């Protein structure tokens, strides 16, 4: 896989999970890293990162011999995202790759959904992604280069029962990404969406999600839900490992992907073969 020697990579939602995995992989390949995370729990959401998690990610990055700056910020705050970009430019001079990864999930049927479950999920997953990308776009246009990857979902390619908030937010991310691809193409900047199925993180492995997948059991375990998850895709894999998701992010961020823009890369064990487009 391509190296990222001397590049500056910014990743939102980097305290743990996929964001941490991406961050460490970029650092191992020569990049300096800025990680942003809200580092606090939104009440309705799947388990989120903490300041300790954020510090641990920094330790992992610095152990590779590369620099790391951490910023505690909420992607829903557009001004905070402009500050994130400004701080990064002040400290590192440039941004080569921006990974809009911060996202949350909260499940429930639409007809009884509490307002926070809708608005928190859409505000973080869609508006947060747009806020952060809008903040970095002027810099990349001026620079005449850049790679942006936004984390969408295979649920952004179809309807999501008990998951309308999440599905709508991820559909929105893909529409936003495709629109930005058109705008940024003349400036040498690419932007793509990554649309994975479940990834083996806290968003997947938690009691609420397990209970949704096995409502017949009082206290389902990982082994209890494995087959239910696996039933969602033709390859019958329950969930992606972190490295599966990270490999796609590295590729979309690489020189080799220079003419790939405006796509939604489905990493979903063939789930996507059920979709029209």
């Amino acid at each position, binding site marked *: 896989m391509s190296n990222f020697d001397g590049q500056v990579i910014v990743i939102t939602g980097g305290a743990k999970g996929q964001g941490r995995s991406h961050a460490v992989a970029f650092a191992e390949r020569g990049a300096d890293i800025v990680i942003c995370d809200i580092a606090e729990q939104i009440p309705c959401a799947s388990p989120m990162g903490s300041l300790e998690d954020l510090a641990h990610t920094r330790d992992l990055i610095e152990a590779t011999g590369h620099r790391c700056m951490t910023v505690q910020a909420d992607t829903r705050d557009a001004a905070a995202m402009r500050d994130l970009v400004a701080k990064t430019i002040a400290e590192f001079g440039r941004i080569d790759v921006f990974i809009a990864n911060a996202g949350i999930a909260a499940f429930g049927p639409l007809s009884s959904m509490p307002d926070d479950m809708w608005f928190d999920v859409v505000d973080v997953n869609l508006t947060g992604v747009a806020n952060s990308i809008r903040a970095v776009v002027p810099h990349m246009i001026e620079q005449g280069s850049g790679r942006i990857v936004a984390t969408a979902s295979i649920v952004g390619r*179809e309807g*999501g029962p008990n998951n309308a908030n999440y599905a*709508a937010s991820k559909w929105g991310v893909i529409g936003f990404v495709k*629109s930005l691809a058109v705008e940024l193409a003349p400036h040498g900047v690419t932007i793509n969406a990554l649309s994975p199925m479940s990834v083996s993180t806290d968003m997947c492995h938690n009691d609420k999600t397990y209970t949704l997948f096995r409502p017949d059991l009082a206290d389902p375990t990982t082994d209890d839900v494995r087959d239910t998850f696996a039933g969602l895709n033709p390859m019958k894999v329950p969930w992606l490992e972190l490295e599966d998701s990270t490999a796609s992010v590295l590729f979309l961020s690489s020189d080799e992907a220079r003419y790939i823009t*405006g796509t939604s890369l489905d990493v979903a064990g063939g789930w996507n073969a059920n979709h029209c487009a």
Partner: protein
Amino acid sequence: MTDIELDNPHAGSVAIVLGATTAVGKAVAQQLVQAGATVALVEIAGTSTGHTLEAVAREVETAGHGPLTAEIAPRDTSGFAGFVRRVVERHGRLDVLVTVPVVQRPVVADEMADGDWNSGIDRSLSAAYCAYRSVLPHFEATGRGRIVSVVGDEGRRGAGGASHIAAGAWGVIGLAKSAALEMAEADIAVNVVTSTAIDDDRWHDEAHQRYAVDAVGHEVDSLDVHAAAEALGLRHPTNRPFVAPDAVARAVLMFISQPDNTMTGSVLDLSQGMAALNTA
């Protein structure tokens, strides 16, 4: 009841139209009333676009009875739920929800103000959510309902210069398909109509003219409604620049009039041929 009423799926039905002051919202309300339905009209607060709520209400009043109307903020779920209760109290039933987004100013992402983004999402996706969330418990209780959401053709592709409009439209399609799946086992249908350039006031606005011209990389001497129409005509395989609001309303009524929910989770494009460029 006459034979005509028996054959008419809209006769006696009650519909809420969200975005009633838009050209499409007004056309939907008029066609529903002409077909024998009763309408209730919602304007997204602070977004009066061309028509006032009072003017639209006057045009669709039947036998001297004006429709129920309300201005509701796009994130005000309880306000919307209260309006649904009023509609059911007055008319004894609710059969249909139609959501129409309010027109947004096109602007490229690197020049977009935070307010452009927020209103772009709120006046399409957030408002649609509040409406769905408010009518679905009623539809679930009665076991029947029809929802149609209208969005721009930005919901079917990337839209340079309109990423906020595209994100809202794609989001509404994701919402509609999710609701269609959740409700599939009842006689509840949720569908989407997309439309390219609606023939309304927006084309007198320079930002929309610029958006139309830029979409085809068209060089123009002066930016005006004629330049926009010419560019839109070049973009569309049919060479026609605009889609009539009445054409969108006819498609909405087609979805509403289906006898069951065989047709649910669908997206129908009024695209002047742009749909032929879609992958699927």
